């Protein structure tokens, strides 16, 4: 049972991260290798709010959303936007997000060390699980993370298809220069998307901190899973990425558990290979991923 709870929480958090990654890839064509560092930033916001200000971890969500969103916006506005103006090549962009990730690893570790040395709070391999509350005898995180994913699905649908900003967004994605011709401030649309993507990452980080162990090193471990989720979802389909995140999350935990029961526990340490296998097989054999299926379902609705 506990393994199912674990899997559900992990899978929903992963799908929130996948949505963020897909959003910025779809809109500005940048595979953001620094995406999970926004989540870890949110994680530390949760630690600060819980341990230093002695409040409920969920109160950290607004702060995490803003701080991670602002970091993400910074990356786009001051680095990627300028690089994109100069070249059409994707390589400088990849190298730039990788560099930003390295930079963020430095920042996050400095943050962790400083929290420990200044406030005597454990900041590595920490968990806030004991601060979680119970709703209907269930851990609140389970309900909240599921609810957050559901809200995300509905909220994104509403935003993309029912609001003016959504139409502007879809136009900017399809044809940036034509969107500009029709008075759409595409730059603002892109900036909002990056802020949103980072903010979602930060929120996912708060959820992660409540249930799993938090550590600066988690960023590197989480990144392949998030990429795998987005890629399995087709990489340009928002809904695909939600499903993809769920698929990767559940298979990482449940499949490993199943294999471990049958073949021995040495398999558990190979869990990190699962997302890579998904990435490689999807891109080589089925590059459009789940997006094809999602599209058919959407058309039927």
């Amino acid at each position: 049972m506990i393994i199912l709870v674990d899997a559900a929480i992990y899978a929903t958090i992963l799908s929130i991260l996948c949505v963020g990654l897909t959003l910025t890839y779809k809109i500005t064509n940048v595979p953001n290798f620094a995406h999970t560092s926004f989540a870890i930033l949110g994680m530390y916001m949760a630690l600060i709010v819980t341990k230093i200000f002695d409040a409920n971890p969920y109160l950290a969500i607004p702060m995490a959303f803003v701080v991670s969103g602002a970091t993400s916006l910074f990356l786009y506005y001051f680095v990627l936007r300028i690089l994109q103006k100069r070249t059409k090549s994707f390589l400088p962009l990849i190298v730039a997000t990788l560099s930003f990730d390295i930079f963020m690893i430095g920042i996050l570790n400095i943050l962790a060390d400083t929290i420990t040395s200044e406030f005597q709070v454990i900041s590595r391999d920490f968990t806030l699980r004991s601060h979680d509350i119970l709703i209907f005898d269930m851990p609140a995180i389970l309900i909240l993370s599921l609810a957050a994913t559901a809200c995300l699905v509905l909220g994104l649908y509403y935003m993309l298809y029912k609001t003016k900003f959504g139409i502007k967004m879809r136009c900017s994605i399809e044809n940036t220069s034509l969107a500009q011709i029709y008075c759409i401030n595409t730059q603002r649309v892109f900036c909002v998307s990056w802020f949103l993507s980072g903010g979602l990452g930060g929120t996912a980080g708060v959820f992660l901190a409540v249930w799993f162990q938090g550590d600066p090193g988690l960023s590197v471990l989480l990144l392949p899973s998030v990429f795998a989720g987005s890629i399995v979802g087709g990489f340009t389909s928002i809904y695909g990425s939600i499903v993809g995140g769920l698929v990767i999350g559940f298979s990482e935990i449940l499949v490993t558990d199943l294999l471990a029961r049958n073949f021995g526990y040495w398999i558990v340490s190979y869990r990190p290979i699962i997302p890579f296998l998904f990435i490689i097989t999807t891109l080589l054999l089925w590059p459009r991923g789940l997006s094809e299926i999602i599209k058919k379902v959407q058309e039927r609705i």
Partner: protein
Amino acid sequence: MMPISIDSLCCGYGKHQILYDVSFEAGQQITVIVGSNGSGKSTLLKAICGLADVYSGEISLYDKRITGLPTYKIMSMVSYMPQTNNVFGDITIRDNLLVASMPDKPDWNHIFEFFPMLQDRLHQKAKDLSGGQRQLLAMAMCISKKPNIILFDEPTASLSPAASNMVLEKIKEIQTALHNCIVLVEQNVKDALAIGDRCYLFAGGKKMFSGKPDVLLADKDFDSKFLGLADDNTS
């Protein structure tokens, strides 16, 4: 007060210069720009919209200097119809017109007055339209804001003769009804000159002629000077 006045403009893309010291004016009439491929006539329209890099010179709309402004700001004063990819294929016709008239709501009566055939296709996706219909939708998007200035970049390119006649007639109709300033860049020289009130001839990024279309048409060397050149380039 001229709707468009351009003073000794030099512009291009990045390091690649296209236009050399071009001055240009357009009043409340149809101004046609003709010239062979690569003569820089489309670039002039893009420069007005802020889509090309201006090295020197001034562009003003109604005496307001717009050089260097971001595209989305300029476009509140101008409508521009690009040669290709001029509609959003993945969204419906209704949404296309909605986007084109933002921030206001579309004036449907005004649009259907000129383009009645769009009325019963509003919920179709734009990519499902035929070539000619797509051009009409793009034109409808251009007029939806009732702009004082409209720039058309080769609206008849890749259309059948019948469809291109329809498009040119539509342009004439719009100008007669709205009395606005229309700049029309065309390859289809003779038909375009027929509806134009004033015309410019570009070659090699420089202005070669400006004046009444009949003067250009009456020029004995017209064919060799101009059409011959065009044929060489298009064949």
